[in-house]
């Protein structure tokens, strides 16, 4: 059996950044990375961007580092391999091909999978998910001949794919189960702003609708909604969320909830086992609860922190997460904790009518999150306000004033808690 000081399961941005960090901290350590895909790191973020699909950004830009990066850095790369089981007592990861790897320290950074659509006909050719570069290539090929497309779901996959289809002059419908786009993370006013730009680009929005069945001879020819309406299409993009695969480590004794549970150092309940990225449900020091996030920036930062902790540097993960998207002349950003809840005070900043609208989310005296439409310039300062636990309870007037420079709140306020 081969033994490594560090074994990393997952070669996405979290696993890769951990490997890179470990190599910097420990130049001679044996490191192995197991990746279900054959590739070195690529930009998953790029996969849903219209400019990339339409060739405005050259395809090769998708590769973050050379394919020989692992070799150059003396890291053993197990491409196209998955982990099949974990024995945390003996410290062994068994791979799908039967081989076994011993570890001193293990990182689980396998990410999440696109949630499969369970409805009749969804296995038909022409139904696509978007998670891996191979998924992306299939969609790139399909749009060359597609005339009509449907996207399922009111989130960012649907938003960016609808933008792409509109640019590619494909007749597009978006089917949303909710009342409006991005419900309930956004309020209705924000959701309608997004719907307005979509419809302005020729995209049809079908709200409050669920798909009953995907129909067609062999290939997709259309979808039938539960209310009986039929929409003809050549392709369907399914963006209905993500799911985690817990099977391979289920018997190891590792604690899970929606993701793998970890403390603020991204360490799990098992000795010498860490987790990072989309699959990690960690103790967030800023929110004081366990949360799980799925975005590039978060996975990158967690990979770095997990790597540092595995190398013996004791550093907690303390980070205000954010992600953004744009298209059709609108930009949307989510900062910090944007989950809806009864305990939240929402301050509206700007107006849909002026095409510039933010929602500042407050719990108690502190800002916890924000959603920004065409106000991405405020992302950084809001992240800092959250990170520094600034008391904003007397500042609602300033927060409501779309012309007030939020940086003013950073300077004058007294911090409630000194972390």
């Amino acid at each position, binding site marked *: 059996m081969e033994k490594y000081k560090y074994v990393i399961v997952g070669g996405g941005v979290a696993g890769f950044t951990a490997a890179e960090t470990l190599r910097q901290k420990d130049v001679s350590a044996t490191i192995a990375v197991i990746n279900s895909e054959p590739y070195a790191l690529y930009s998953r973020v*790029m996969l849903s961007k219209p400019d990339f699909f339409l060739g405005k950004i050259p395809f090769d830009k998708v590769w973050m580092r050379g394919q020989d990066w692992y070799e150059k850095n003396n890291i053993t790369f197990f491409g196209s391999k998955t982990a099949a089981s974990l024995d945390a007592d003996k410290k062994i990861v068994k791979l799908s091909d039967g081989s076994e790897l011993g570890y001193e320290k293990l990182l689980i950074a396998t990410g999440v999978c696109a949630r499969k659509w369970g409805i009749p006909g969804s296995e038909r050719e022409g139904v696509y998910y978007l998670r891996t570069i191979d998924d992306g290539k299939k969609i790139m090929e399909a749009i060359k001949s597609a005339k009509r497309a449907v996207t399922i779901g009111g989130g960012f996959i649907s938003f960016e794919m609808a933008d792409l289809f509109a640019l590619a002059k494909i007749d597009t419908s978006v089917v949303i189960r909710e009342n409006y786009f991005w419900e309930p993370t956004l309020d209705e006013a924000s959701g309608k702003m997004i719907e307005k730009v979509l419809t302005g680009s020729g995209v049809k929005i079908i709200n409050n609708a669920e798909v009953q069945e995907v129909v067609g001879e062999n290939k997709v020819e259309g979808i039938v909604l539960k209310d009986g309406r039929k929409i003809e299409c050549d392709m369907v993009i399914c963006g209905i969320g993500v799911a985690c695969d817990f099977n391979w480590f289920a018997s190891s004794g590792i604690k899970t909830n929606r993701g793998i549970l970890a403390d603020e150092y991204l360490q799990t309940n098992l000795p010498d086992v860490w987790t990072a990225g989309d699959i990690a449900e960690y103790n967030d020091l800023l929110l004081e609860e366990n949360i799980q996030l799925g975005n590039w*920036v978060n996975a990158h930062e967690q990979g770095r922190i997990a790597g540092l902790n595995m190398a013996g540097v004791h550093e907690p993960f303390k980070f205000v997460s954010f*992600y953004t998207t*744009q298209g059709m002349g609108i*930009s949307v950003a989510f900062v910090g904790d944007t989950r809806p809840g009864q305990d939240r005070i929402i301050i509206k900043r700007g107006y849909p009518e002026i095409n510039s609208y933010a929602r500042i989310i407050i719990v108690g005296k502190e800002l916890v999150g924000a959603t920004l439409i065409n106000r*991405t*310039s405020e992302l950084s300062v809001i*992240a800092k306000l959250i990170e520094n636990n600034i008391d904003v309870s007397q500042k609602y007037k300033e927060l409501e004033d779309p012309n007030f420079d939020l940086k003013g709140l950073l300077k004058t306020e007294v911090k409630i808690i000194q972390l």
Partner: protein
Amino acid sequence: MANQKEYIRNRADSNISKIIIDRDLCIGAASCIAVSGSTFELDNENKAVVIGADTADDETLKMAAESCPTKAILLFDKEGKQVYP
């Protein structure tokens, strides 16, 4: 590409003298801000802009550029040679 914005860096202990942001490539993923919030910010078009060319050391700046999922941040040394990507 045409839509590039240049920022001159004048830091004594630095080998990097210029930062370019390619606005056509930038998608506002904001990873650069996560790594070096004193250097980068987004504007309202969701594109990265440099707010402090001299605030970060070379290692942090390079890490920020390397974290960009579209390689929209270009770094140049004092001889004008591109050092990343």
